[in-house]
C-alpha cells in the first residue's frame, strides 16, 4: 500500500490476496537454499542471448539450482510487487531494493520478467509457467531428483486453453511433485470472474482433468501448510486458496468490482487512503 500511494497506483488487491500464501510458501513450505543473489538487485543485465555471458535470472533469489532443492515459479507476473515484498520479508532481498521498483534500468519491474527478483521465467503472457513447471518436473524425475516443484497461479489463468493442456500433461505423466497454489480471488481485469468468463466449478474441472483439487482458506497459514504436507496419491495437487482481494484494507471494498489495478482518481481519494494507511498500517503505528 505504501507503494500504491507513492506511485499513485499498483496491484494492491493482489497483495491482499496473496500475502499469506507467499509467506507460508517461503517461510514454512519450500525447501530453498539461501539466496545466491545480491541483496539489493543490480541493474538490468540485458536480455538472454548468445552474447550475454553475464546474464542471470531472478531465480538466484531462490538459491543455487541443485539436485535436491525445490523450485518455485510464480506465474502471474503482475504479482511482482507482492513477490518482491515476500522476498524482503523472507530475508532474501534488502528492503532498499524496492526503491528500484518500476524505475528505468532496474530489474525490479512492475510486471516481473525472468531477470526480476524471484522470477526465472517469462510469465507475463499467463499460462506458460505451469506448462514449463510440468516439463521441469518430468526432467527432474528423469534425472532421479526428489525436489518438489511449486507454482503460484492466478485463477484467471484457468480461462487460458493452455492451462488445461498443462493439466492434461500433469495428469498423463503423473507429475505429482508439482503442487500449485491458486489465488482464487474471483477477480480479473474486467471485474468479477463470474461475470467475465466463469471458471467454476473450478475444483470439479481440475479433478475431471485428472489432477487433485483441495479448497482452503487462502488467509489461513496452517491450512495452507497442511495442504503441502498431504501424502501424494499420484496426482498433481491444486490448492485452491479462497482469498479476499480487500483483505486487511476494507477501504478497498468501495472499489468493487474493479480491483485488478488500483489507481487513485483524485487527490482527495489518495489522501483518504493515505490517512487510512497512516492510522492502520504504517510502521510507526505498528510499533505503538
Amino acid at each position, binding site marked *: 500500500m505504501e507503494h500504491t500511494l507513492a506511485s499513485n497506483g499498483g496491484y494492491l488487491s493482489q497483495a491482499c490476496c496473496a500475502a499469506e500464501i507467499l509467506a507460508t510458501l517461503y517461510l514454512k513450505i519450500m525447501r530453498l537454499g539461501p539466496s545466491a543473489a545480491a541483496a539489493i538487485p543490480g541493474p538490468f543485465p540485458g536480455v538472454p542471448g548468445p552474447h550475454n555471458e553475464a546474464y542471470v535470472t531472478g531465480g538466484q533469489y531462490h538459491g543455487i539450482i541443485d539436485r535436491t532443492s525445490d523450485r518455485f515459479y510464480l506465474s502471474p507476473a503482475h504479482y511482482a510487487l507482492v513477490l518482491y515484498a515476500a522476498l524482503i520479508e523472507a530475508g532474501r532481498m534488502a528492503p532498499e531494493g524496492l526503491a528500484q521498483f518500476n524505475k528505468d534500468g532496474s530489474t525490479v519491474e512492475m510486471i516481473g520478467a*525472468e531477470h526480476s527478483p524471484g522470477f526465472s521465467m517469462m510469465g507475463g503472457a499467463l499460462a506458460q509457467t505451469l506448462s514449463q513447471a*510440468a516439463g*521441469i518436473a518430468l526432467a527432474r524425475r528423469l534425472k532421479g531428483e526428489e525436489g518438489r516443484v511449486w507454482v503460484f497461479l492466478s485463477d484467471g489463468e484457468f480461462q487460458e486453453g*493452455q492451462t488445461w493442456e498443462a493439466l*492434461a*500433461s500433469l495428469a498423463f505423466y503423473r507429475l505429482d511433485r508439482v503442487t500449485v497454489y491458486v489465488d482464487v480471488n474471483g477477480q480479473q481485469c474486467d471485474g468479477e470472474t463470474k461475470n467475465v468468463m466463469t471458471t467454476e466449478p473450478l475444483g470439479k474441472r481440475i479433478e475431471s482433468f485428472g489432477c487433485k483439487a483441495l479448497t482452503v482458506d487462502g488467509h489461513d497459514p496452517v491450512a495452507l501448510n497442511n495442504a503441502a504436507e498431504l501424502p501424494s496419491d499420484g496426482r498433481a495437487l491444486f490448492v485452491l486458496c479462497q482469498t479476499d482481494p480487500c483483505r486487511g484494507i476494507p477501504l478497498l471494498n468501495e472499489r468493487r468490482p474493479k480491483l485488478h489495478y488500483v489507481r487513485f482518481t483524485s487527490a482527495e481519494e489518495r489522501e483518504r487512503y493515505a490517512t487510512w494507511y497512516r492510522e492502520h498500517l504504517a510502521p510507526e503505528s505498528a510499533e505503538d
Partner: protein
Amino acid sequence: MEILTKVHAGNLVRWAKDKPQVVVLSADLTGSVEIAEFQAAYPDRFFSMGIAEQNMVSFAAGLAREGFVPFIHTFAVFIYRQALNQVTSSVAYSFLPVKMFGFLPGITTPGGATHQAIDDVAVMRAVPNMTVFETADATEIESILDPVLSTSGPVYVRMLRGEVPRLFPREEPFRPGVPRVLSMGDDITLITAGICTEEAMRATSAIAKRGLSIHHVHVSTHKPFVSPALLDAVSRPRLGVITMENHTVIGGLGSEVAELLAENGIGKKLIRIGLQDTFAHGGSRPYLMKKYGLDAMALVQRVEGLVRGSLGISEADLASVRIEAVHSLAKAEAL
C-alpha cells in the same frame, strides 16, 4: 538422381544413440514426421504430448531448463502459428536449446492452407535469438542434426519428409551459414532454398545452353543471413538477382536478399519467385508449383523477362532434364 525415402527417420535413430540429453516430443503426428522409429528405439526419451502444441512448446522449455535438449516434431504451422507466443516467451526469450522441426513447408502437402507453412521463415526469423535452417535434400537432412545441436539456443528447422532427392554429395554436409554455389556466372544470380533448388536446377542447365551464365547459390541458413559468398553472389550479375522460394515472397528468402542488397548499397534488380502474397490450397506438389508459379518454367519465364526475349525453352525441354548431385563449385574457405 537418387531418390531416398524417410531419411530423417533412420538418421535420427542412429545419430541420437549416444546423446541421452536429446528427447523427442510429438503432438500426435509421430508417423507423419518420421519419429516412430525413434519412439521404438528409445521409448524412454520419447514423449507424447497430444494435440496440444502450446503446452508442448512450453513443456519443452521446462525440460531444457533442466539440461535436456528437446527435439519438437510436428507440422510447421502448429509450431509457428499455433504456439508462437510459447515459442517466443517460453523458449526464444530465455535462449533455451529447444530444437523445433517443422514439417510440410510451403506447398509440399495436399493438406491445404491449414497445413501449408507458407510464412514460417518470415515469422521465425523475426523472433530474436532464433536460428532458422531449411533442408533441401537427403544430404542436408542427414547432416543437419550436429549443427542443430551445436548451435546455441533455439533452432527452427524447415524440414522435408518422405521421398527426397540427393542433390548434394554426401561428403559435402550441411554447414550453418555456408551457402552452396552450384554454378558460377555473371549474367544472372539465382538464389534458391528448399525444394525450389531442385526445381531451379531443372531450368538452369537449359538456360545456360541459351548462352546466359547463371550464378546459382543454394541457401539453407535463413538466419543469420550473412555470408561472403552471398555478398559476392548478389554483387556480380549483369542483369539482376532472382530468388526462388517455397514460401510467400514477404519475409522469406526474397526479403533476406532484398535486405542484403539494400544494406550493402547494391543496386541490382531483384525478382522474387514464390507465393505472391497469397494462400494456396490443397493439391499435388506439381500442380501447386505450376499454379503458383514456383516451378522451373516459372523461372524460365522470369529470366525471359529479365533478358526481354524468348529463350525458346519448352516444358518438354525441362521435363527431360536429368539432375545429378552437384558439388559446390566454390570452396567456402576461398570466399
